[in-house]
């Protein structure tokens, strides 16, 4: 092999080697840290239908008569829902607090909450509050829990009115109520 061919084929070999080296390296490296291994992720997420904006009232006879026979109902209720107000406190610090409007053109849909924070592993005290009523400034749902989070754990703070309030997911049931 003459020197010209040596340069040509050697150069090509170096090119292909460099090409696959770039592919191989950048396809997996450098490693990205999403959440530090000594931290957990707390996600507040739920969908909740606030109470109606106002009281229902009985329909008058004239109002009933004005309705088609198949649509006559006894009372009329406002369609809109109240916004819900949520506050999540972790170790005395508010990690989430917002008032979320109901969805829909007529504001008659559910309010959706999604918020995630990263917290150090260890024992934490959670205070979860929600108000979904119109006539009070007080939170009608208030719960306090003590949780122990491992590094890499994903704690989800959900809400279920049927279950009586906030529900913690992906956490050991040893999460204790705190008074």
């Amino acid at each position, binding site marked *: 092999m003459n020197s010209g061919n040596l340069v*040509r084929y050697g150069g090509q070999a170096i*090119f292909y080697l460099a090409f696959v080296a770039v592919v191989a390296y950048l*396809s997996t490296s450098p490693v990205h840290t999403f959440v530090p291994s000594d931290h957990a992720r707390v996600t507040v997420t739920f969908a909740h239908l606030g109470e109606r904006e106002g009281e229902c009232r009985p329909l008058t006879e004239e109002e009933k008569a004005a309705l088609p026979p198949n649509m006559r109902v006894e009372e009329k209720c406002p369609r809109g829902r109240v916004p819900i107000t949520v506050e999540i406190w972790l170790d005395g610090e508010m990690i989430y607090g917002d008032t979320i409007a109901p969805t829909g053109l007529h504001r008659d849909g559910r309010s959706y909450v999604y918020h995630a924070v990263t917290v150090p592993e260890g024992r934490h005290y959670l205070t979860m509050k929600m108000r979904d009523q119109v006539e009070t400034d007080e939170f009608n749902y208030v719960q306090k829990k003590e949780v122990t989070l491992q590094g890499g754990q994903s704690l989800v703070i959900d809400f279920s009115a049927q279950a009586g309030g906030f529900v913690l997911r992906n956490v050991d049931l040893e999460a204790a109520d705190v008074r």
Partner: protein
Amino acid sequence: MALTVRRRINHFIQHIEDGFTAVFGGQNNPLHHLGALTIFFFWVVLISGLYLFAFYETSLSGAYDSLERITYDHWWHAGVMRSLHRYASDAAVITMILHLSREFLRDRNRGFRWYSWFTGVPLLWMVYIFGITGYWLVWDKLAQYIALNTAELLDVLPVFTDPMARNFVIEELVSERFFTLMAFIHLVGLPIILVLGLWFHLLRIIRPKINPPRPLMIGTFTALMVLSVLRPAESQGPADLSVVPTQLSIDWFYLPIYPILDYTGPFVLWGALIGLTLFMASLPWLPPQRREPVAEVILENCTGCTFCADDCPYGAIDMVTRSDGRRFPKEAKVNPTLCASCGICTGSCPSSSPFRNASPLVSGIEMPQGPMEKMKQDIDEALRRLEGQEQKILVVGCEYSVDVTEIDRPNAAPVRLPCAGMMPPSAMDYALRGLGADGVLVTGCDCADCQFRLGNLWTDERIQKKRPPYLSGRADRARIRTLWTKLPGRNKVLREFDALAEDLKGRPAEASGSEGVGGTAQEADDEQR
């Protein structure tokens, strides 16, 4: 200012590209085939993907396990295919980014080329979505991370009410149907859309380079295969929504937006993505390119031979029904929006022959800024200046490669054209037999890298009688040389010139004086046929 910087960077990069040409040759220089290489990698991805689909289970519960079987139990065929699928996808991103960077630096994104650039921008989005959905289908920790972050990114758009991200933090909420939808998008929807997008991207290109040269295909494929065997692609543990992924091996070719999202938040990222997309899409008009006059058909000299329409690299010439009642069935018609003003059409027109006894020389298709009469006069003048020299060599060069007017040889008669393809072969013959030049050296852009795509190729083929209009059989081919090189190739041109001059020593010029073929376009056309 920006254009000046761009030109300087381009000039610097051409030095690097010249190194690649030295190693691969111009014809096989990978940097000359970046678009075609991207398409080639896409085919590798498509075929390896189809193979993998035979072993892949399209379900949340089965996806990860099926890929584990592919990777470990069937490593020698399906596992290698999986790795090839990933690495070819990554390679496609490299060539794609290099392709668009190079076209930008070469100023090949403005003017009549706006369409190809503009239609390439959505392709970027498609390729990235293609890659992201592919990683989603593995349903490992990386997929979990991608799913969660993609959902968080999409949730800030005002089109979704229900936060999608909620579905990727609670195990029971992950939807099997949604996963199937993602599989459908990746396996069926996006490949079809991508092929359609490619079709649009290449719509205004005649004879697009769809496939790279075979040595490049073999070389890149072999390299990726070796990598696939030596470093198999692996999953990163099954997705588990009760645990948040901490450290992840990211594919930085496809997934760099996710770490950026982690640091900046969704609004900044959306702003950057939309801003970058709009910026990219508007680049053809930043600033608008000064439009050169486009080719003009001179009907009285057009015989409707179709050579110009066949040679135009951008399909800017159509052959339409004759409008002037002459006996020729067709005439050429220029589409001004597609015309690159390269002059390749004038080089292909038999009526461009300087041997014609027409004064002034008017071709069947002319560039208003550089008519054939001017080219003829330039050749006459350049060779006349060498009167008294023992040897006269006509050196023709294009505007995008070595500036032939800077060839400092006393026996060089330089003529510069917008593209080497603008020079009709009859003009080379004219210089040799008509004006008594000893030789002709035609130089221009590197092989497979012509600024106007095909100028150098057509020139070679015309000289070699592979493509009409042919160089006359009476012309001594030993006196004609072509050299295709890059901007920094001045020394190569000088070496080639000196070599030609040396070869021609002792060989007197063939003839002197004009040898007319007749004044009409028809006579010139007959001469070519």
